């Protein structure tokens, strides 16, 4: 086993892993700017230089471009290193504006942080700063070039990850400036990632600009619900409002990235159209109701249809927007308690198909996070998931008279066929998050929770199961969907004695073969694959 040492600690050499990454992975921090583990290493910021002795020679070298070798001795905290770090910090601040009080990056800024830990503590620069302009370069992106430290992460992102090449490096020397080609804006669907990777407040998110100081934000680790990719994300929240979504690193799913659709797709959570209370009655006759009344109406409505037309007359529309636990409860409720007939899924597939970027990062055509969970779980519970056209046909032909419709779509839209079908149903219960023509057609509307308002798990397209977490309370009197399903079941004397969603999970794992042996601790923050997915 070939080894080398960092600060006296003996470490095994992993082929292809540079000294910097090795140090970071072993809990030894070396400050750096231009290096990012998801991108190539240009070695231009010079911040990561440490003392390295190899082959009898000792010198300051950039740790991000140096590969470990047998017997190499690396020292990260010598006086020479400290003086060098001070020098680099001083150089970086020479032309940098004193924008901290007005800069979004404050609080999560590597320039601030390293200045504090590694900088000289005072400025000797008495000349005129070279000032570059603040620019609007994309639908979501602003580039305040006066703050740019030329680490070039953003350029490399557009070249290596999105493969869209919008950013160029212009001019020379201290007049180096990062910019777009005039008229060709930074509008690729991964553009928001450039803001994440910018170590300073040069690249800024237009939606987040001046909105919130980061130290007031509390992060909730969860999963994006925008498509079946299931990117690991963190929702930054304060005062019960989302301020931004950012990706979390997950080598098994999304690496370091998320797409703009997901990143900027949380507006519906705080929409004025959120369903806050149960509603009874259709269209103009819609009226707010208490949960007890709503649940009672649900029980009564389905019972009536069952009596008049038999069990097969009650159908269900499952939803890929709901969690595994919710799929399970719905299946158990529908089959065992409600004793309904056919269940279908309305696929939400984008016509453009999967959108694949240069690095392989893919925005999935399936715009629901948990289609796979729905199919696996409902199927295992004896409810094969049909095509929605079967349900519309059934309604048309008079075989289906009632529908339990699960929604959860941030942008619900009914087709003409669907509208016609739904109009022909005697009793429609819709469980959803936003008011829409769908909910206006419902006899009972039950207000559910957005993905950030409940705990649970999703299964992505590849069978990777991840936890979602509650970062906000559902608004008004809305409830987590698993709670609603439990309460509906119990209103029908179903005896669903779940106090916590983990109890549902435990039962799910014990019942659905595909999930056998899964463990929430093993799933942790980055998820784990279904046994079938691992094959």
């Amino acid at each position: 086993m070939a080894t080398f040492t960092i600060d006296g600690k003996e470490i095994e050499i992993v082929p292809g892993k540079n000294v910097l990454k090795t140090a970071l992975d072993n809990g030894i921090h070396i400050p750096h700017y231009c290096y990012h583990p998801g991108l190539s290493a240009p070695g231009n910021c010079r911040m990561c230089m440490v003392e390295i002795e190899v082959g009898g020679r000792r010198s300051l070298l950039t740790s991000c471009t140096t590969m470990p070798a047998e017997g190499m001795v690396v020292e990260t905290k010598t006086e020479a290193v400290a003086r060098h770090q001070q020098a680099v910090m001083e150089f970086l601040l020479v032309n940098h504006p004193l924008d901290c009080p007005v800069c979004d990056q404050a609080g999560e800024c590597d320039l601030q942080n390293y200045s504090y830990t590694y900088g000289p503590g005072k400025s000797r620069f008495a000349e005129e700063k070279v000032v570059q302009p603040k620019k609007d370069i994309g639908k979501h992106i602003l580039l305040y070039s006066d703050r740019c430290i030329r680490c070039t992460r953003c350029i490399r992102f557009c070249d290596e990850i999105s493969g869209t090449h919008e950013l160029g490096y212009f001019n020379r020397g201290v007049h180096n400036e990062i910019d777009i080609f005039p008229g060709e804006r930074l509008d690729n669907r991964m553009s928001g990632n450039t803001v994440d990777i910018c170590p300073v407040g040069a690249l800024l998110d237009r939606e987040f600009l001046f909105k919130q100081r980061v130290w007031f934000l509390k992060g909730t680790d969860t999963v994006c619900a925008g498509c079946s990719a299931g990117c690991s994300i963190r929702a930054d929240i304060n005062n019960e409002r989302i301020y931004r979504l950012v990706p979390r690193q997950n080598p098994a799913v999304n690496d370091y990235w998320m797409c703009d659709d997901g990143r900027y797709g949380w507006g519906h959570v705080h929409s004025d159209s959120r369903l806050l209370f149960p509603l009874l009655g259709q269209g103009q006759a819609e009226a707010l109701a208490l949960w007890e009344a709503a649940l009672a109406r649900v029980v009564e409505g389905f019972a009536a249809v069952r009596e008049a037309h038999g069990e097969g007359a009650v159908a269900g529309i499952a939803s890929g927007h709901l969690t595994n636990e919710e799929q399970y409860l719905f299946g158990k409720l529908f089959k065992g308690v409600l004793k309904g007939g056919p269940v279908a899924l309305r696929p939400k597939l984008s016509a453009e198909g999967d959108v694949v970027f240069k690095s392989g990062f893919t925005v999935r055509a399936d715009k629901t996070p948990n289609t796979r969970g729905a199919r696996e779980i409902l199927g295992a519970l004896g409810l094969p998931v049909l095509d929605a056209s079967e349900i519309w046909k059934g309604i048309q032909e008079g075989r289906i008279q009632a529908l339990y419709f699960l929604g959860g779509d941030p942008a619900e839209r009914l087709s003409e066929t669907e509208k016609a079908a739904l109009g022909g149903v005697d009793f429609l219960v819709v469980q959803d998050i936003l008011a829409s023509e769908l909910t206006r057609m419902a006899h009972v509307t039950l207000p559910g929770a957005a993905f950030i308002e409940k705990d649970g798990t999703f299964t992505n397209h590849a069978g990777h199961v991840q936890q979602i977490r509650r970062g906000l309370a559902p608004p008004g009197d809305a409830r987590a969907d698993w709670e609603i399903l439990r309460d509906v079941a119990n209103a029908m004397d179903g005896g669903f004695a779940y106090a916590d969603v983990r109890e549902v999970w435990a039962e799910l794992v014990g019942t659905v073969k595909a999930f056998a042996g899964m463990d929430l601790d093993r799933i942790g923050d980055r998820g784990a694959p279904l046994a079938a997915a691992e094959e």
Partner: protein
Amino acid sequence: MPEEYKVITKLFDVEGLADLDTYRAHDGYKALEKALKMTPDEVIQAVQDSGLAGRGGAWFNTGMKWSFMPKDPKVPSYLCVNCDESEPGTFKDRELMRRNPHQLLEGAVIGAYAIRASAVYIYIRGEMWEELVQMERVIAQAREAGYVGRHILGSDYSVEVYAHPGAGAYICGEETGLIQSLEGKRAEPRVKPPFPAQRGIFDCPTTVNNVQTLSYVPHIIHKGTEWFKGLGSERYPGTFVFCVSGHVRNPGLFELELGAATMREIIYDLAGGPYEGRALKAVIPGGASTPPMTPDQIDIVMDPANFAIPGRGDFQGMFGTGGMIVMDDTTCMVDALLNLMNFFAHESCGQCTPCREGCPWARDIVWRIEHGQGRPEDLDMLLEVADNVAGFLSPRYSTICLFGPAFSYPLQGFLQSFRSEFEAHIEQGGCPIKQDKSIKVPG
């Protein structure tokens, strides 16, 4: 009186030397014929044994550099000829290319053969457009005669030669900057390792050689290793084409054996010394990146070995490109330094932090001092800024390429040798020297 010994500048006055027939009438391409009858390794050995060292300023044994190239390349290997001569005070490569282009071409083809290159790119700075056009003609002539192209002179060896223009960037003279520029990129030097012999242009093994260096190659092959070794000094055989410019009566090129003359002899005896009534004040020995020398230091014998910096091992950088810039007593040293700092600030590629920020900062401080706005603390601060980029006597060198030392060494040198002049500017709040900025045409 030192004597010139002309090897590569010998034929400069021959009319029509750029024409193939004229060149051939002077033993042109005989060396190439001979080299093709040797094996590539024999050619490498011959050049290595001759002691020829890179004349672009690096002074690394050329043959040894060639030996780093793969003997059996699986991907194309390349030779790049560095004709991006942009070091202030240096103009020998232009003249070599302009006045004896076939000599360079012959040396390049022999070098390409030795390193098994499949193509040669002659990188010529954009400002030398006429030289580039001439080189295209020269290559075409050589191709027609069978010295370039497929199966040269009936041998198994084929090589393409192309001229490629730069467009106004000094940093293209840095070997990896040149490689980047050739690849159609911003000339931002690369982190080394990997070295060009491992991964150069198009990720293929590449050797970059200077014009002057390659110009010697035909002579070494034609007249032999021993002949070359018999010239110059023991450590650095051969001749060198010195450039002298600035405040001298007879600026120009002088080819002498290395170690054969002192700087004083070259400046006074060959270049005519300072103008009438002027006294020598300073000499920049080898291009703008070398610290200035004072009149008491110019009895140094012009051999790179004498220019080593104590404690910096084999670094011969202070001999540099052998481009001497002479300054007389009408020169304000602060103004001279400002001129150089402006040069470096314009030419920094801007890639890495210390150079990009440190170079213009240092220039701004020198500007203030020259314009009477200097402060007492400026001088030590200037030295610290320079040291933070590349310490003159410390092992610190924090930039990606040698551009960092290139601007910080002369900065430190000027301050070291002429500190009182800087102090006078600060104390007096202005430039105390009457600078002669009129047009001077020597003679």
